[in-house]
C-alpha cells in the first residue's frame, strides 16, 4: 500500500482579537517588513495554542510543525480536546483554508464532510438538492445520476423526493445530507464530527457505511470525533493532537489511552467547572485510601472512592455525584445521598463503594460533580469535573471475572443449562 497523505512541517497561525481595526496600517507595516526582507512583525514563532494562558502576542499557532503519513486504505481517527487543532487540520486537508507554512502531498481525490448538508437550499426539492449538494462536494452530474437510487434508498426519503427540503423533518434532512456525502466516489474521505446529529440508529448506520468505505472499498478515511466508541469501532490508527502539536500516532487503542491520560494529566482546579464553583470546593479524591491519581487494582478488590471537599456557603439541598467512564463512555453514575441534603458550611466527605468483580479489566476515569436540588429533583446549579482521577483494573481472570465474558461489566453468575429436554 502506498502513502495516501503525507503532511510535512504543517503549521497554521491565526490572528486573535479583532480583525478589521487598524488592518490597513498593519498591512502596510507587514508589506514594508517584507520588502526589506524581514520577518513578518505580527507572526512571531513560538506561541503555542494554550487557550487558558494569556500571552502578549495576538497570533496563535493552531497547528505547529505537524508531520505524519497516512497509508492508503487506513481509517485514522483524529482525537484531542477542544481547540487542539483537529478541525484546523481537517480544514487545511480539505483545502478550505491554506496552511501558514508546510506542505501536504497526497494521492487520490479527496472529499470532505465537515458539515452535513452544506449548500442545501430550503426551497429546492430533495432531488434537486441531491444534485446540487453532490456537485458542491465534487461529483459530476452523471455520477450523481448513477448513484441517485442508492442515495435515496440510504436516506429513506423516496416519498419526499419532490418536496422542498424545508418541509423535511430535521432527521430526514440529516439523513439525506449524509447519504449524498457517503456515496462520493473519492479515494480519501474526511469526516468531521457530523455524526453528533441524527438519532442513535442513524448514527449506527452512518458508522457502518463509513466502515464499509474503509474496509471493503479500500478507501482512506480520516475521522474526527469526541466519541471514543465510534473511533474505536471505525479506525485502526489514531492521531492525538494536543495544543496544536502531534502528541501521539499509533494503534487506536493506545492513542485513546494516551489521549485520556493526557486529558487527566492536564487536571487542575480549573478543570472543575459550574455555577456552584464558588460554593463547593473539591479538595481530594482517593481510591482505596490512596491519593495518587492513577491506581492499579485487582478485579477482586472492593473499590472505595472518597471525595473530600469544603462547602463555603450553605446549600439547602445538595448531593455529590460520581461517574465512572471507560474509553470515553459513561458506565454509571452514583450519588452520595438518595435525596439532596442540607449542606452546611464546613468540610464534607463522600464515600462511594463499588462492589468487587463488577468492573472488567481496563482503564477507568472518574468524574465528580454535584447538583443542587429543588423539590422536583435537579436544580439549575451544578458543578462538574471530568476525569479527575483514574484507576486500572488488572487483567486477572477468574470465575467471577471470566476471560470470555467480553463487555464493560461483570454480572454475578446466575444461569443454568438443562440438557436433553
Amino acid at each position: 500500500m502506498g502513502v495516501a497523505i503525507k503532511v510535512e512541517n504543517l503549521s497554521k497561525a491565526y490572528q486573535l482579537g479583532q480583525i478589521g481595526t487598524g488592518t490597513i496600517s498593519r498591512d502596510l507595516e507587514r508589506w514594508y517588513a517584507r520588502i526589506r526582507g524581514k520577518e513578518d512583525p505580527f507572526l512571531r514563532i513560538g506561541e503555542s495554542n494554550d487557550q487558558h494562558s494569556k500571552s502578549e502576542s495576538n497570533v496563535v499557532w493552531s497547528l505547529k510543525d505537524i508531520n505524519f503519513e497516512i497509508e492508503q486504505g487506513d481509517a485514522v481517527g483524529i482525537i484531542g480536546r477542544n481547540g487542539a487543532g483537529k478541525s484546523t487540520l481537517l480544514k487545511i486537508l480539505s483545502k478550505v483554508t491554506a496552511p501558514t507554512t508546510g506542505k501536504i502531498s497526497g494521492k487520490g481525490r479527496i472529499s470532505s464532510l465537515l458539515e452535513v448538508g452544506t449548500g442545501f437550499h430550503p426551497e429546492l426539492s430533495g432531488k434537486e438538492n441531491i444534485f446540487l449538494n453532490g456537485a458542491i462536494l465534487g461529483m459530476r452530474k452523471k455520477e450523481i445520476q448513477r448513484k441517485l437510487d442508492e442515495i435515496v434508498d440510504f436516506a429513506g426519503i423516496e416519498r419526499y423526493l419532490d418536496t422542498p427540503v424545508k418541509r423535511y423533518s430535521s432527521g430526514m434532512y440529516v439523513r439525506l445530507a449524509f447519504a449524498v456525502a457517503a456515496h462520493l466516489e473519492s479515494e480519501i474521505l474526511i469526516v468531521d464530527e457530523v455524526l453528533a446529529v441524527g438519532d442513535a440508529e442513524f448514527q449506527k448506520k452512518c458508522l457502518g457505511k463509513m466502515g464499509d468505505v474503509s474496509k471493503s472499498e479500500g478507501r482512506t478515511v480520516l475521522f474526527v470525533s469526541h466519541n471514543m466508541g465510534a473511533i474505536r469501532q471505525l479506525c485502526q490508527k489514531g492521531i492525538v493532537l494536543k495544543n496544536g502539536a502531534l502528541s501521539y500516532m499509533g494503534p487506536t487503542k493506545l492513542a485513546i489511552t494516551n489521549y485520556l491520560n493526557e486529558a487527566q494529566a492536564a487536571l487542575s482546579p480549573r478543570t472543575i467547572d459550574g455555577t456552584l464553583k464558588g460554593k463547593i470546593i473539591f479538595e481530594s479524591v482517593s481510591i482505596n485510601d490512596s491519593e495518587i491519581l492513577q491506581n492499579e487494582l485487582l478485579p477482586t478488590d472492593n473499590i472505595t472512592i472518597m471525595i473530600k471537599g469544603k462547602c463555603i456557603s450553605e446549600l439547602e439541598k445538595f448531593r455529590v455525584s460520581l461517574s465512572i467512564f471507560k474509553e470515553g463512555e459513561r458506565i454509571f453514575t452514583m450519588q452520595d445521598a438518595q435525596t439532596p441534603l442540607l449542606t452546611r458550611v464546613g468540610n464534607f466527605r463522600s464515600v462511594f463503594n463499588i462492589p468487587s468483580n463488577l468492573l472488567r479489566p481496563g482503564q477507568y476515569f472518574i468524574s465528580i460533580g454535584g447538583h443542587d436540588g429543588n423539590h422536583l429533583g435537579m436544580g439549575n446549579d451544578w458543578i462538574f469535573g471530568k476525569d479527575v482521577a483514574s484507576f486500572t483494573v488488572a487483567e486477572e481472570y477468574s470465575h467471577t471475572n471470566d476471560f470470555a465474558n467480553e463487555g464493560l461489566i461483570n454480572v454475578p453468575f446466575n444461569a443454568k443449562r438443562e440438557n436433553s429436554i
Partner: protein
Amino acid sequence: MTNPMNEHEHDWTIEAKTTLFDLKLGEVWAYRDLLLLLVRRDFVSFYKQTILGPLWFFIQPLFTTIIFTFIFGNLAGISTDGLPKPLFYMAGITAWNYFADCLNKTSSVFKDNAGIFGKVYFPRLIMPLSIVVSNLVRFGVQLMLFLLFMGYYYLSGAHIQISWAILLFPLLLMLMAFLGLGAGMIISAMTTKYRDLAFLIGFGVQLLMYATTVIYPLSTAIEKYPKYSWIIEYNPMTPIIETFRYGFLGEGSFSWNGLAYATGITAVLFIVGIVIFNKVERNFVDTV
C-alpha cells in the same frame, strides 16, 4: 519490479504559497456541472412560492422605465436623441441592470457564501461565474421585453432602425459581464478585510448610473457640460450603452475608440480581479 505508484508519488499538493497566476482554470472546468446547477438553483428559488413567478423579471425594468419616462423625460425634459422615451430608457436600464447586478452580487460573493466556503472546497471562481450566468438568464428575459417594446413602437411608426452595430451585441454582452465580474471580484476580495467597501458599493453603483448614459444621451451631456463630460466619457460603461442603443435603435454616439477603451479597461480589471480573487480565496475563511 517497478511499482506504478512510485512513478507518481503524489498527484496533488497543498502548500502555503502558490504562484500568482495559478488560476486553476482546469479545476473550474471540472466543476462545470456545479456552475449550471447553481444557475438553476438561483433561477428556481427566485420565483418559488410566488404568484407571478418568472413575471417578476419583467416588473422591475417595466416600472423603472415608466418612472424614468415621467420624471426624467416629461418632468425634467431631458433629451432622448429623438427616440421614443420609454424605448430609450429601457435600452439603458436593461443593459445597466445586467452590469450592476453582476457587480453587486459578485462584490459580496465571499460574504454571502461564507457558510459554504468555510465548509467545503470547490474552485471559488465558480461562484462569481455562476452569478454572471444567472444574471444572463435574467438579462435574456428582460431583453425579450425590450424587443417586444421595440416591435410595438416600430409597428406604430416610431423612428427607430436597427443598425449594423447590433452585430457587436455579443461583444457588448461579454464586456458588461466581465467588467462587472472583474470589478466585483476586486471589491469582494477587499471586503473580506475592509467591510467599509460593502457599504460603499450599495450606493456607489447607484451613483455610477448617473455618470453613465442611462437617462441621458452622451451628445446632450457633452453639449451641456463640456467641462465635466470627460467623467462620463471615461466611464467604461458609457461606450457600451451608447453602442447598445446605436445597434438596436439607430441613435447614440458610437465610436471605435470608445469601444476599444472599454475593452481595454475590462480586460485589465478582469485579469487583476481574477488574480486578487484567487489570492484572497485561499485564506479568506480566517478573516471574514
